[in-house]
């Protein structure tokens, strides 16, 4: 009975106190000029990748600020040359005061996302520090994998067939029919081609796995 009570108590503690720690997103709440802003930067899971930026603007009274020109840009702390032109964060139709845009993040590590606002209340700017690292590995969708495998098999068979046709008939004068020797040479060529392509696919598979291993070792 006492053991049961202990198990129930521990389970309840775990259930009540569990929390998600360490979201990869960056959040900012503060001023962007005369606007009160809440900014979420949903970082890409891979680098280079596309980050999605959500900017919610309100005025001093808490009313959603609409009709504001909001632009966003990302840059690394050590960028030495000019900045690229900013991207537009478009208003979200169903949510007044919410603006959204996408940014390519090309380099991992310490980046900054700059939010610019230009509207009736005035102009403002905020720079949000964002750390971008690879943090997830995407599995190959089984349907895509099946489709690629099927197409790959078709291409494999097609290539071997082309080699066979080339050896069997391509050098024959127009209208001639291949003899037994040509057909035998073609079958040999097809067998050799099969072996070479199989070896190439094996090599390609090892290459893919090596790239995957390298990536997994870099995931945060």
């Amino acid at each position: 009975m006492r053991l049961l009570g202990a198990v129930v108590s521990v389970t309840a503690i775990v259930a009540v106190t569990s929390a998600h720690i360490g979201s990869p997103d960056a959040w900012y709440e503060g001023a962007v000029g005369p606007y009160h802003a809440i900014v979420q930067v949903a970082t890409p899971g891979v680098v280079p990748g596309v980050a999605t930026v959500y900017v919610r603007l309100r005025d001093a009274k808490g009313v959603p600020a609409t009709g504001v020109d909001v632009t966003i840009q990302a840059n690394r702390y050590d960028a030495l040359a000019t900045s690229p032109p900013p991207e537009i964060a478009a208003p979200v139709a169903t949510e007044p005061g919410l603006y959204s845009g996408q940014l390519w993040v090309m380099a991992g590590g310490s980046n900054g996302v700059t939010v610019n606002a230009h509207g009736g209340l005035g102009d403002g700017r905020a720079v949000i520090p964002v750390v971008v690292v690879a943090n997830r590995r995407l599995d190959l969708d089984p349907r895509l994998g099946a489709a690629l495998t099927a197409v790959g098999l078709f291409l494999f068979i097609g290539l071997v067939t082309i080699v066979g046709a080339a050896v069997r008939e391509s050098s024959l004068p127009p209208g001639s029919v291949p003899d037994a020797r040509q057909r035998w040479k073609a079958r040999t060529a097809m067998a050799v081609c099969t072996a070479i392509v199989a070896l190439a696919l094996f090599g390609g598979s090892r290459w893919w796995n090596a790239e995957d291993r390298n990536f997994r070792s870099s995931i945060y």
Partner: protein
Amino acid sequence: MTASVADRPVVAERARFGAWAIPGPLYAVVLASTCIVVGLIWDVSWHRTVGRDTFWTLAHVLEQLAAVIAGLTCGYLVLKSTFAGTPDERATSVRFWHFFYGPLGAWVCIWGTLMMITSAPLDNWWHNAYGLDVKIISPPHMVLAWGMIAIQIGAMLMALSAQNRAPAEDQRLYSMMHAYAAAILVTMVATVIQEDASVGNHMHGSKFYQITAWVIPLFLIGLSRASRLRWPATTITAIYSAITLAMSWILQLFPATPKLAPIYNAVTHMVPPAFPLLIIVPAVAVDLLMRKFGPGRDWKLAAVIGVTWVTVMVAVHWFWADFLLSPAARNFFIGADQWSYTDRLGDWRYRFWTLDVDATGKWNPLAFAKGIVIAMLLGVVSSRISLALGSAMAKVKR
């Protein structure tokens, strides 16, 4: 000579337009090949200058258009030959799966088109899984590259089969078309290896000579063997040089700025490809050797070509590299010292990379010589394979 699908349109069109008339499908696949190589060089420049990656950049559209042109043209040829082919059209076709008929080159083009189409979803997934790759050589890019190469080979095979069936007065025309398609293929291959073998900085390391000794003769020697031109390797490499220079000069005329951060190098115009490799010089030697040896002595010929190729490449590029790294090369015509917007500029631009060094990090002539011997061996093997393939291509009539 029996009339054939390649001859009849030529004969009929010659009656209307004169001797310089070419079958429509051949025009179409050569146009597709041109679009591929222009799109490829443009795409690399786009990624180095603008950086914006959406599937629908103009360069990508051009490459996909090439696949569509090649695929539709050759698909039409195959379907027509199979379901509505004249006896002549079937006579100049190869059979596929016992039912379908079509020119060999058309089948290769169709295969290439399917490879290019397949690479798109694979590349898209790869970017989502591992990040946008900022390098040329990745598994999905190799699927795409082989698709593009297949379309080039298909175009060449169609030109070769026309050359090998044409009357003597028309052969030169088809030989030039083959040389043009071959040059596009060599240009593509040079683009694929550019990360390790393109700029002057590479040219004092044996790795440059190993890569160029393996990759370029693998295509060039065989393509030359199949041609009936008097100077096939020279012609092919001259066209390759012209294509690369034209793209370099045209791209530099267009203002462009990066649209992705971080920008470490504030470029203002499209970054051009590197000056073409001076492979026209060893190509002249190749032509002379092939003429001297003739057919039937391919092992010896391959050995001599392999050694000669590397020797001439070193002799030319070693000193050419010094010029490319000098201020005299930093102009519109040579296009040296132009880097991607992501490159952090520094003294490394004027130093030689991947040198053959000893344990202390100093350049070691013995290590370089060892690397050059390996390059020669690679050149010999590559040339022998290519000669065998070229001999087969020289006989293609369908």
